[in-house]
């Protein structure tokens, strides 16, 4: 506590002005507000003001039945829509204690990896865009269209695929699309090889990423930061390996870890993960034709009292769903913990400290922020009717109180 006060004082003395960024800003597509405290050009501290995209999804879920919720959970985030709905379905399947057919498992794994591909390409593009290297942005997004094409081939839609349902998947993957998908994967692999070279060696990119935005391993552990951000700081965690779900333990792939802790290593983790995803996809495609055609088991949709949880690895890290049923066709309580929330709220103040203001967009982009699943923190004091948005210091305080 004492230390915090001291820090506060130092901060007050140093800060020459504060700069609000957002809610509408070229830096990100979504509306979000950062308050940056500056000493000249150097960043002393940041406040994050989230909540512009809060839609109250958890509460909405309690009002809808289990089938309707699949499509609602899909619309939590447009980038990771597949993983959200699949984790939801997995959670409900855990509630019911049912097993889904083998083929459905493979199809789900495939869609998840395709989604990881498109999300990572999107990320590479955004990093290029923030660095000011529009060529990289255009290239990466051009190649991303190939992964979108594959998703469209498999599911019929580009963003909200509506692929899983409780007990399996809704559509089968026909055999005749497999050769064209393999061709696209080959193309993507070639392109990724090129990106690996560019993001490792290009002078502009090195100048804007190497050694910047350091996120030390001990802070990663302290704030339980997850996903590629944690892996880029040398922490070997991946839900796909630690608590395997779907088919991940049968497939051959490895967890990517980088040691450098800076923006560049965060980019490199994602580039190398693209290779792993392609590898997984190839194995799935090879296996699919030999499997039984059954894609769905029948499940009851009125669920007796139970509790369940499902954990998966979204493109941005660990995703947790908790469900509690009450004997009707609606859940009593749903709780969702998304990776971006921890990654943004805790890592931003650390990685931005003592950096130049001009580097801010590139550093923020390097943790792959995505706010639509983050905005859930509006506190309403029912007694006084007072509303306040929970900011980072408040959360830290809460965390400290818990620890004691």
């Amino acid at each position: 506590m004492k230390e915090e006060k001291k820090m506060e004082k130092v901060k007050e003395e140093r800060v020459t002005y504060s700069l609000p960024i957002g809610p509408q800003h070229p830096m990100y597509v979504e509306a979000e507000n950062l308050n940056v405290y500056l000493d000249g050009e150097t960043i002393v501290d940041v406040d994050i003001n989230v909540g512009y995209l809060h839609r109250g999804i958890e509460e909405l879920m309690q009002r809808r039945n289990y089938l309707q919720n699949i499509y609602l959970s899909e619309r939590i985030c447009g980038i990771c829509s597949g993983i959200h709905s699949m984790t939801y379905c997995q959670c409900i399947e855990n509630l019911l204690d049912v097993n889904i057919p083998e083929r459905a498992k493979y199809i789900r794994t495939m869609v998840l990896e395709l989604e990881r591909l498109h999300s990572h390409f999107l990320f590479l593009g955004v990093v290029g865009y923030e660095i000011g290297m529009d060529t990289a942005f255009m290239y990466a997004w051009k190649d991303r269209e190939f992964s979108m094409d594959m998703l469209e081939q498999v599911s019929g839609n580009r963003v909200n695929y509506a692929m899983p349902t409780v007990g399996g998947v809704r559509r089968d993957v026909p055999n005749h699309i497999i050769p064209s998908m393999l061709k696209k994967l080959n193309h993507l692999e070639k392109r990724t090889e090129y990106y690996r070279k560019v993001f490792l060696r290009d002078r502009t990119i090195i100048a804007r990423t190497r050694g910047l935005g350091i996120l030390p391993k001990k802070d990663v552990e302290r704030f339980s930061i997850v996903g590629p951000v944690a892996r880029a700081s040398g922490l070997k965690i991946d839900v796909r390996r630690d608590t395997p779900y779907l088919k991940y333990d049968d497939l051959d792939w490895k967890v990517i870890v980088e040691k450098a802790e800076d923006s560049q290593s965060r980019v490199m983790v994602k580039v190398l993960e693209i290779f792993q995803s392609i590898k997984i996809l190839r194995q799935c495609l090879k296996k699919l034709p030999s499997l039984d055609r059954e894609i769905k088991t029948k499940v009851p949709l009125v669920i007796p009292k139970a509790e369940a949880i499902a954990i998966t690895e979204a493109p941005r890290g660990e995703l947790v769903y908790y469900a509690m049923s009450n004997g009707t066709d609606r859940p009593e309580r749903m709780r969702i913990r998304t990776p971006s929330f921890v990654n943004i709220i805790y890592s931003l103040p650390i990685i931005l400290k003592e950096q130049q203001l001009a580097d801010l967009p590139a550093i923020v982009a390097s943790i792959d922020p995505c706010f639509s699943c983050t905005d859930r923190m509006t506190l309403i004091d029912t007694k006084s009717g007072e509303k306040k948005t929970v900011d980072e210091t408040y959360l830290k305080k809460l965390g400290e109180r818990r620890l004691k």
Partner: protein
Amino acid sequence: MVFRRFGERIVCYARRKSPWVLHLDTGGCNGCAIETFAVLTPRYDIERFGGLSKANPRHSDVLIISGAVTKKIESRLGRIYDQTPEPKVVLAVGSCAISKGVFHDSYNISGPLDRIMPVDVYVPGCPPKPEAILQGLIKALDVWREKYRI
């Protein structure tokens, strides 16, 4: 007088050939935001129509707005609309912006977009494909022409 009319017409013509767009996500799932972003990139390429993505409302002519409007962003949205200079057109992209979509009964959503600002073109879909957004943009230019008799 004649000269002034002439000058005006040249300006309007030029404007129609270079619509600068501002995109804002106002509380959807950002699926629409991503698809709108894809419109800027090589496969769909908005620059074929002279379009350019701009970050500043004061520089832009077309507002592309996606997402159901949350309570917190409502006032901001009004301000962004006011800051955009006339003549302007507004595109509502996605079912969220048109009718609140899946979030229709949420406590934090303050209404479809056209309750907050006049909307000229609606692009339905959840999310609409980039081609549809592009077509919406071209429609918007026609609306613009009619509205301001360019």
